[in-house]
């Protein structure tokens, strides 16, 4: 009976309500902050992928030809190896071999994934794979005779 009365007293007491409110608010704030940071990292990765794609397009434009090995090396140099499943596809009409004629249009599609790990229990993390897809087009700046 005494224990029940004590419990009732504790539950009705208003002492420390600000502290409880602060802890709950702080927990929510930390959660929202973590979500925003994850979103910001994703946006940063997206811009990074977009930059790689633009550089690939400019390289093909200025050289007037698509060399797969050069493009992949350039993507790796620019930090593309930090992205999961990075794939670069180039669609173009070639005038000879891998050469693209002056002012002919080509399309570059870059696809990758960014993994956000939500929680990790032992060896098995719970994660979300967010897709990154950038499509850009360019035109050759080289006249091939």
């Amino acid at each position, binding site marked *: 009976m005494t224990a029940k009365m004590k419990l009732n007293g504790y539950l009705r007491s208003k002492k420390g309500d*600000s502290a409880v*409110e*602060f802890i709950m*608010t702080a927990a*929510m*704030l930390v959660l*929202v*902050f973590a979500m*925003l940071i994850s*979103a*910001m990292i994703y*946006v940063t990765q997206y*811009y990074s992928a*977009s930059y790689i794609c*633009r550089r690939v397009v*400019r390289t093909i*434009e*200025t050289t007037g030809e698509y060399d797969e090995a050069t493009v992949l090396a350039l993507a790796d140099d620019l930090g593309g190896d930090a992205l999961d499943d990075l794939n670069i596809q180039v669609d173009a009409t070639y005038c000879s071999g891998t050469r693209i004629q*002056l*002012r002919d249009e080509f399309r570059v599609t870059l696809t990758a994934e960014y993994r956000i790990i939500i929680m990790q229990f032992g060896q098995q993390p719970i994660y979300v794979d967010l897709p990154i897809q950038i499509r850009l087009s*360019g*035109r050759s*700046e*080289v*006249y091939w*005779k």
Partner: protein
Amino acid sequence: MKKLLKDRTGSASIMFFGFLFVLLLMTFLIIEIGATMENHDYAVSVLQRACNSAVEANIMDEYRADGILLLNTQGADEDFRSFVQNDLPSKYQVVISSVNCTASPPSMTATGTITFPTVFSQYGFEEMTVSFTVKSTNYDLN
């Protein structure tokens, strides 16, 4: 009303929403600044491409065979304007203030301004206007 204003209950919640608002605003601003820079870079790269292509397309081949590089300056000027008009999407407004070409060495310098909308334009703010200068010189004898 006075009592309500003096009541300190829920101050932490108000602080929480204040922080949240500032955080969201900062995130939104960072994303928008990134998008604006990307739009600017894209427009400048299209202008540079138009400049390079106009010079490349207007080098007179009959002289190049003899190791002389000569540019058809009028053709290069016309091509530059045409390439810019065709290649830039309609959201960009380009004002070309000058195009200077030299026949030998084949080169072109173009200046002007680019205007494009940002997310704030829909709320009555002015569109972003930036000036540009693109240059191209071609020494390729092949």
